[in-house]
């Protein structure tokens, strides 16, 4: 049993060490921007610091953190301030530019990054984090059948993109 309120700072430090990369990768897949993804990591851990409940184990804690991160990413995309922003693609690191810097495997990451957000997030959680469709449905607050549809369609779009060079930028 993990109780955050007993020692919030210690738990936050541990969570950053254990799950910081997972939150960062998911946020990066969602927002496609390294600075925004780092902000989400920080805000997610802030939510953990404020959390008064407890977790059964580390996996439970990780799922909770990813769920909060997804909610924060949604809020960020929805916020008026974010929509007002002009792209800083000329100057800042984006997921695509990161993908281009990899020597091998970059084309798959790049193709996933170009999928619409609803597909790439689900694909990331399923194929990278190894969550089942039921678990993803809890994290994403979608029905299980929707998650499975998104997985299937995302995979088809990905296949088209990799084979035919289609661009599904959203």
């Amino acid at each position: 049993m993990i109780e955050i309120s007993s020692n919030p700072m210690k738990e936050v430090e541990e969570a950053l060490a254990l799950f910081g990369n997972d939150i960062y990768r998911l946020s990066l897949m969602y927002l496609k921007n390294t600075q925004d993804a780092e902000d989400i990591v920080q805000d997610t851990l802030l939510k953990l610091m404020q959390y008064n409940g407890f977790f059964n184990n580390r996996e439970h804690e990780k799922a909770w953190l990813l769920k909060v991160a997804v909610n924060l990413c949604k809020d960020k995309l929805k916020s008026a301030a974010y929509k007002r922003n002009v792209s800083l693609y000329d100057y800042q690191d984006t997921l695509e530019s990161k993908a281009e810097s990899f020597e091998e495997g970059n084309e798959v990451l790049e193709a996933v990054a170009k999928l619409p957000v609803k597909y790439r997030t689900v694909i990331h959680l399923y194929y990278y984090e190894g969550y089942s469709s039921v678990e993803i449905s809890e994290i994403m607050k979608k029905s299980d059948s929707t998650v499975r549809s998104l997985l299937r369609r995302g995979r088809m779009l990905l296949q088209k993109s990799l084979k035919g060079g289609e661009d599904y930028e959203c």
Partner: protein
Amino acid sequence: MNANEQYNKSMNDIQLSDEARKRILANLTNSFNDGTYQEETKTKKNNIKTVVATGGMVAAAAAIIVGVPFLLKDGFGTDGTSEMEMAADSASEDAAPADEAYEEESAGMDYDSEASVEETDEAAADEDYGELTEEAGEEVEEGVAESTEEITDDETSETSKNLDSITAIEQLHADYIYEDTDGEFVLKCKKGKALGVYEIPKSCSCFVVSLNHKAVTTYFDASGYRQAYWTENGYAYSITSKEGITKGKLYDVIAQADKLLKTEGKK
């Protein structure tokens, strides 16, 4: 190497930098030590009250102006529904708790443009999704896009306006405390230490971008205009503009500010 393995390998290479970890931890530690992390809930509640009160007044004024008294009698603003929706709107702007609490606060919110259209082409419950790019055998519509992710580029023509409208470039000494005219924005500068995002009230949206190896933080002032500051050699530099600074042209604005500070011998 198949697509799965390629993707996983690429993803494994993406990690939070040590610098980012340190910065995040420092910000959270600051927030914990000064207790501001506990104040967020209170602030949020106050914001909701303000929004509800303002919304109520606007609604009442609108109803009076257009001369539709029945609105007040039977509709908007009297049954609590609209107030609750506004409260949910406000809460979800800056907060994202998990589990039940989040669902309550987000009631009525529709984050996803496709959420209201449940996808019905359900796959078999025990379907194995196999490899990432395995043949799926079904055509789907192309060009799927989400309105929530559209990024416009209509601010680029405002560059010169931004540069001309800079009203203040301040060099703030270490340990100096700066407050804006409304007293809402407080900036604490400590020598040799990067400024923490959580030293800015949550009512200001902030983010950090790296430009020319500077961690430039921008925030939105009370009028909703973007302003910026950064730290260098133990000093904090702040750029404020009446008409705001467009994100896309921050680089130019900061370069201009650098030049100006050097000209004035402040750097």
